[in-house]
């Protein structure tokens, strides 16, 4: 039965793509909702407090409550606002953010498509999201959102340049624009790109923070500054769409960073046979999660919560058992490592938000144009020189670089 479904899908690639897209959208929406929850919890722990605790055990149903609240809010469109543009602007942001996921490889064969100009597609489509911000600020018919939108878009455009040039450094090593091939190249070289391009990595991370309007570059949307940002006039579900777009962007740039610099779906030291036992990490991680859930649940005062948590822990152990079966283990390897790395990045985003003050706008632009771009340019030049020099000196290395 599974075979016939598989063959049907193979025969009709359009339906296969549609099924993949639907699954991806649902999974992403879930991840983004729980990313908001994770942010609130991690930020709370950094600040010596607990975060959401009342809605569901340990506040786990908070995103559900937030979603319902935003859906039920009154839909306000300001008088004099350009109605259709006002309605369209958040949609543009969300669509641009989601579309880029089409070319991101989650594992060796888990991707929607693999265009051979993957990175170009990513840079182009993610830049379209800026339209959503500008149009949102413009159509609000109020000078505070307009100023906020202009500042935000100027910031985004500046840091796109720096991010693009950091990526060029990676391209010089990988010899290909396709995302899948970049990861495969890292596997061939036996090392993640971060060790070969550390400066590009740091530049890309900083540009990532600025691209997604996160601390320390979040002046355009900070509440304690004068202009409350481009989404002042938005409320209810439209605001939720902007919010969704921002968090999806966060996940997106993390995925891109992981693919380009951290070896995508590869496990650490992918070519070293000795560390092959790392294959069992998914099962071990699930058992660890089960132990953690059990420990959390046993501390609760409410009996029902204890049973629920114990049940969840048992479920995790069963799942670990299922995963330990070799074919399942092999299938889940790639996506597990990808997921762990993206999670580390997202955690870092939230960690920075809890630690740093924010840059003033002119200082932000200063950092972008006078520090990031020259550094990125220098990195590109240096990489090109090194590559030429190494390939000239050691012909064997040429094949290693070009593969």
């Amino acid at each position, binding site marked *: 039965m599974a075979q016939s479904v598989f063959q049907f899908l193979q025969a009709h690639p359009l339906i296969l793509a549609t099924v993949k897209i639907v699954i991806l959208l649902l999974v992403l929406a879930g991840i983004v909702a729980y990313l908001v929850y994770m942010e609130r919890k*991690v930020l709370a*722990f*950094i*600040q*010596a*407090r*607990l975060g959401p*605790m009342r809605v569901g055990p340990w506040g786990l149903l908070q995103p559900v409550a937030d979603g319902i609240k935003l859906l039920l809010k009154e839909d306000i469109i300001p008088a004099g606002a350009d109605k259709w543009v006002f309605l369209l602007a958040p949609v543009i942001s969300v669509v641009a953010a989601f579309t880029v996921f089409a070319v991101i490889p989650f594992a060796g064969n888990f991707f929607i498509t693999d265009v051979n100009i993957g990175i170009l597609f990513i840079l182009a489509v993610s830049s379209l999201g800026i339209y959503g911000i500008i149009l949102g600020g413009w159509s609000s018919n109020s000078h505070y959102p307009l100023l906020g939108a202009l500042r935000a878009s100027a910031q985004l455009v500046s840091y796109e340049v720096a991010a693009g040039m950091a990526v060029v450094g990676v391209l010089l090593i990988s010899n290909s624009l396709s995302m899948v091939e970049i990861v495969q190249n890292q596997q061939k070289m036996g090392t993640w790109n971060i060790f070969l391009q550390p400066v590009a990595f740091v530049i890309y991370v900083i540009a990532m923070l600025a691209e997604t309007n996160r601390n320390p570059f979040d002046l355009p949307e900070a509440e304690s500054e004068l202009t409350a940002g481009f989404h002042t006039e938005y409320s209810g579900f439209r605001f939720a769409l902007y919010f969704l777009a921002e968090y999806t962007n966060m996940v997106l740039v993390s995925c891109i960073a992981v693919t380009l610099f951290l070896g995508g779906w590869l496990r650490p030291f992918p070519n070293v046979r000795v560390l092959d036992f790392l294959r069992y990490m998914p099962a071990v991680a699930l058992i660890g999660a089960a132990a953690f859930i059990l420990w959390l649940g046993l501390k609760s*005062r*409410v009996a029902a919560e204890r049973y629920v948590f114990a049940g969840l822990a048992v479920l995790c152990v069963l799942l670990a058992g299922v995963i330990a079966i070799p074919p399942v283990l092999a299938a889940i390897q790639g996506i597990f490592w990808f997921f762990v790395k993206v999670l580390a990045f997202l955690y870092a985003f939230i*960690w*920075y938000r*809890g*630690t*740093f003050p924010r840059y003033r706008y002119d200082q932000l632009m200063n950092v972008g144009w006078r520090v990031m771009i020259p550094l990125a340019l220098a990195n590109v030049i240096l990489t090109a020189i090194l590559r030429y020099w190494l390939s000239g000196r050691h012909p064997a290395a040429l094949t290693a670089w070009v593969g």
Partner: protein
Amino acid sequence: MGIKDLLRKIFLVDLLKGLRLTFSYQRPSATYTEQYPLVRPLVAERYRGAPRLNNNPETGETLCIACNLCALACPETLIVVGWERTEDRKKKLTTFTYDLSRCMFCGLCEDACPVDALELTQDFEIAHYNREGMIWDREMLEQGPQPTRYTR
């Protein structure tokens, strides 16, 4: 700038030190939250909370001698003491009205009372649904507020 300072600047040492501090704060023992109403706060002994008219523990009669000193001491003049003269020309307390909505909980009435009849207790849950409920009569003052205890 010396070479050490330059290296510190390039390698973002100051930012990393801050990051290390906030990372270390995520251990559960560093959480400072008190989950009210599941966990009730410990209030000091001298806490100036809701007022109470004390009764003599043996006889059950009120300790108040209707001297009116608390009403005179109050900056907001929100205490009204009603009394009547008994047969042997002694003052007996009849009504005692305390307007909690204007009270500052400054403790001057408690300081003024010569017989420790009026006391500001440790009760802080004195919210009410309407304004009339904030004006306490003698009975309310003797019993104290009875807040609902939540367990979940």
